[in-house]
């Protein structure tokens, strides 16, 4: 295998880890409350803009930007839960889709209105230069994003499976009324789930802001990436999202390299439709 191909695959894995991170937020909310957040991609977009603002106003890099973006988005997640989701969850399907879709537009075009439609970007050396490793060249910003995303996604999995908080959340997901009878507040658990899900998007956004183009409409593409990841990994499954995210990162990079950059999104979307046709329960999940 040529070095270039290895390079492309490694790049895909690193980006895929970030996809896995924000997709695990979507899969958590979907699995727990059976609600699809159509604004999920725009949450990531907001994370990117928070990081950008932190850089332009305070000159801070990801060390400051990433925690701040996580915090801001987690707060937004809780606000969105109490102001909107809690009520539309019980409503008809149309209300659920309209509610989060309207939120997506509101966020996307508020940013558009404030920052304009221009492509923004962070300085290339904000994290550090480029490492050469066994013939591979890896940008420090991508390496940082990939590694942090991988660790946090894995941590999220441990949180859900190994802690009492995780068990409580799973109990609410299983049967909210029964959980309530056991002394667990569904409202609190669901608000925490939204905080985690939105916080994950904030972190992911701040991480990819270092090397991605920053533009208000980027959320649309990222939302579809998250849908593909979740449908591939099986809804509600964080390990599924991790595997699927990495896979999609690699597929995207490879198709960008082999077929051409403009077609990489098409390949991912077609893959998504293909999965909806033949295996709607995902690679690892069950319906």
């Amino acid at each position, binding site marked *: 295998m040529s070095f270039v191909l290895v390079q492309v695959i490694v790049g895909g894995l690193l980006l895929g880890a970030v996809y896995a991170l924000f997709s695990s937020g979507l899969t958590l909310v*979907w699995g727990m409350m059976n609600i*699809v957040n*159509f604004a999920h991609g725009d949450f990531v977009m907001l994370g990117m803009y928070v990081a950008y603002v932190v850089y332009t106003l305070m000159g801070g890099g990801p060390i400051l930007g990433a925690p701040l973006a996580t915090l801001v988005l987690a707060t937004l997640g809780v606000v969105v839960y109490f102001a*909107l989701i809690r*009520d*539309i969850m*019980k*409503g*008809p*399907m*149309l*209300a*659920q*889709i*309209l*509610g989060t*879709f*309207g*939120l*997506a*537009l*509101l*966020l*996307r*075009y*508020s940013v*558009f*209105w404030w920052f304009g*439609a221009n492509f923004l970007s962070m300085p290339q050396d904000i994290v550090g230069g480029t490492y050469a490793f066994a013939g591979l060249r890896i940008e420090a910003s991508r390496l940082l994003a990939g590694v942090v995303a991988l660790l946090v996604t894995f941590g999220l999995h441990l949180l859900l499976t190994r802690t009492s908080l995780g068990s409580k959340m799973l109990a609410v997901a299983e049967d909210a009324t029964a959980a309530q009878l056991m002394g667990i507040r569904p409202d609190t658990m669901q608000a925490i789930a939204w905080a985690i899900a939105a916080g994950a998007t904030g972190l992911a956004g701040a991480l990819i802001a270092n090397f991605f183009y920053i533009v208000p409409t980027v959320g*649309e593409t990222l*939302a*579809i990436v998250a*849908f*593909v990841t979740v*449908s591939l990994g099986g809804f509600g499954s964080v390990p599924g999202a991790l595997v699927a995210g990495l896979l999609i990162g690699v597929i995207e990079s490879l198709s960008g390299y082999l077929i051409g950059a*403009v*077609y990489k*999104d*098409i390949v991912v*979307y*077609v893959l*998504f*439709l293909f999965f*909806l*046709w*033949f295996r*709607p329960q995902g690679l690892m999940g069950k319906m």
Partner: protein
Amino acid sequence: MRRLLWLSVVAAVAIAYPLLLSSPFQQRLGALVLLYAIAASAWNIVGGYAGQVSVGHVVFFGCGAYAAMGSYAKFGLSPLFGIPGGIVLAVVLAAIVGVPTLRLSGHYFSMATIAVAETMRLIVTNTDYLGAAVGLSGPTVPRNIFDLSFLSSLPYYYLFLVILAITLLITWWMANSRMGFYLRAIKDSERAARSLGAPASRTKLYAFMLSAALTSVAGALYAMMFGFVDPESGLGILISVKILIMAALGGAGLLFGPLVGAAILVPLEEISNSWLGGKGAGLTFVVYGAIIVLIARFQPGGILSLFKRRGKPGVDTGASHAP
């Protein structure tokens, strides 16, 4: 009887509007309201009556728009000849998307429709035959009346009025046919409807295909009025969003809901665009987003559902009642 009276009042106002308010801006506004009302009424069949929220309806709109402009730009025919082709294309595409996703829960359907629309936009943007990012143009100078290329908005207004009337008639007929009863049952509880023998998947698919066909006609009319189509105006996700919001604001699943929604939102957008200029485009969609969130949160049945309680409950429309 009372409804017949209301209906004739609405019809009379619609016919008289461009003659009473006859400035070019007002006539154009009227035509645009009717055009979006056609598209939103078409969406209403699947999104309102069948309760399947398509967020990618622009793909059918684009089928019509590209077929109409293509028949002129590629074959030198009147754009009218593209309409049947656009309908066939839209119906086939609807079947391809609908067959797998309509079996699944509604979220999958919404996500799949977005993905299809975005895929089509990307493919068309990269296809030179379809004009790539520039798009296709219609006749600049009409060769004869069948090119449907007019300077004034007045002929478009009446053309759109006729098509809207036909669309609403089809919707009304569908809502009161066996299919309409099936759809209402499926929307209330698909499991119950299935267990009583209603062919759920097939009925939803037919509704989707019918809706796609009518949306394609709206797309063709849009392209004829503007004289061109490009990937943004013919396949951009924002067109889907506009269509969907208009129907939901007026009242999804109500016959006249989309018309009411279009009559509110089209003037709002036109006026805010002319006041705020280029900067207004972003702000318009901020307002759109806020409106959808508010409808979803407080009045998921739309504006018309506020008035509905006064009439006989549950007549003819199968409105979306909050459970």
